[in-house]
């Protein structure tokens, strides 16, 4: 079973990102589970969401404490949260960032300027679809195609294609590195 943690800000779509990942996995015949953790905070506050992927039905219902991968939707979160907490050995940190972050070491990192991609493709800095492109590229957890299909299922016609463009562009531009 693979577990992924998403960090974002309330209102930015981290929950949707987790769900789309679960959908993509489902489209590949796997089982997916996605769920948020909400606090009492409002728009702008940091939030987390989780996804699990497995080949057999997923029955466990606990939060994810040791994710295989971590996805960060908002670049400003890095300064305020230890996003890599609990990340398993060999796991990847998928970051929305313009440049390689400092102060992180010993883990695989995928960097994508998801905000740039989102503004380019959607016109707004909503990064939840773009970042999935990066995740697909970096982890091979699900295929690019499955992400695209999931995005198409989820969004209405007009929005769908813009988001597909975001996924694709991010997939292309994601940079993989291992910080030591």
């Amino acid at each position, binding site marked *: 079973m693979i577990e992924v943690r998403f960090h974002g800000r309330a*209102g930015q779509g981290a929950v949707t990102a987790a769900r789309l990942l679960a959908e993509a996995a489902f489209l590949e015949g796997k089982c997916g589970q996605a769920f948020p953790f909400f606090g009492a*905070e*409002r728009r702008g506050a940091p939030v987390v969401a989780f996804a699990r992927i497995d080949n057999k039905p997923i029955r466990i219902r606990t939060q994810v404490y040791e994710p295989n991968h971590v996805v960060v939707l908002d670049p400003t979160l890095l300064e305020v949260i230890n996003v890599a907490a609990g990340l398993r050995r060999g796991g990847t940190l998928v970051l929305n960032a313009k440049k390689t972050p400092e102060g992180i070491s010993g883990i695989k990192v995928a960097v994508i300027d998801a905000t740039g991609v989102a503004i380019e493709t959607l016109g707004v800095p909503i990064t939840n679809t773009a970042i999935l492109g990066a995740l697909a590229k970096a982890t091979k957890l699900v295929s690019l195609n499955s992400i695209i299909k999931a995005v198409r299922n989820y969004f209405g016609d007009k929005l769908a294609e813009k988001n597909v463009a975001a996924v694709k562009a991010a997939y292309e531009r994601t940079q993989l590195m291992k910080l030591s």
Partner: protein
Amino acid sequence: MTEQIPKEELLAPGHRACAGCGCVLAIRHVLKALGKNVIIACATGCMEVVTTPYPETSWRVPWIHAAFENAAAVASGVAAALKAMGKGGIKAVAIAGDGGTADIGLQALSGTVERGDNVLFICYDNEAYQNTGIQRSGATPFGAWTTTTPIGRVKRGEDRPKKDVPRIIAAHGAPYVATASIAYPLDLIKKLRKAAAVEGPTYVHVHASCVPGWRIDTSKSIEVAKLAVLTGAWMLYEIENGEFRLTFKPPKRRPIAEYLKLQGRFRHLTDGEIAEIQRMVDEQCKRFGIE
């Protein structure tokens, strides 16, 4: 203007309201107006949730939250206790959102007013249940999108006019009823002080914007609230012992479209629908003596 506004911040920063929240601004000025000698009973809703994540609180005045529907009754209990214990000079104040006022909290409020309890009730009206994620309330305006008045093939947003709570409370014979807006803080402060000074049940209804609920940019909270007043979508008045008085007359009313266009919750409106809303607003303004 600033010199007329008390400096002391009785609502601490660090609260968890959305960036740009108009309601928390309303509360900030409410507390400034009332000062320290109050006891607040707050209904469930955004303003309760974002200010009191245990073990923290933003309130620098005594404050209690019991439930969603009973702020008025809790405040009445406080007022009774103060009276019974002979503690003068402290005002019992209830604060609730539009849901906790117009809908689920109306009866408790009605009881408080009818009994003549010494309670000031403040409704901050963000025109929907925002705390639970933007569902319609009795105070949601005609035409607005909310998650329970979605825009679909057979239904197009809220189909009932906004419930007129100030009028309903005035019909109870409350000695002081007033409306206010976060965009007019001096007016708001004046009215609250007036309301607090009355020995008996008083009611102030504050129009206050909500970023996600109104689908506005975080920076537009004040602008949109001001436009509500300038277009006549919201009116500033007071009813003192039954006497109605407009406290602000928009110089030349701006078209309602200016107000609606700023907000995503009205995005779906057709020109025809906007014209219909303009007509409703015109009619209402006329009733209130605004041309």
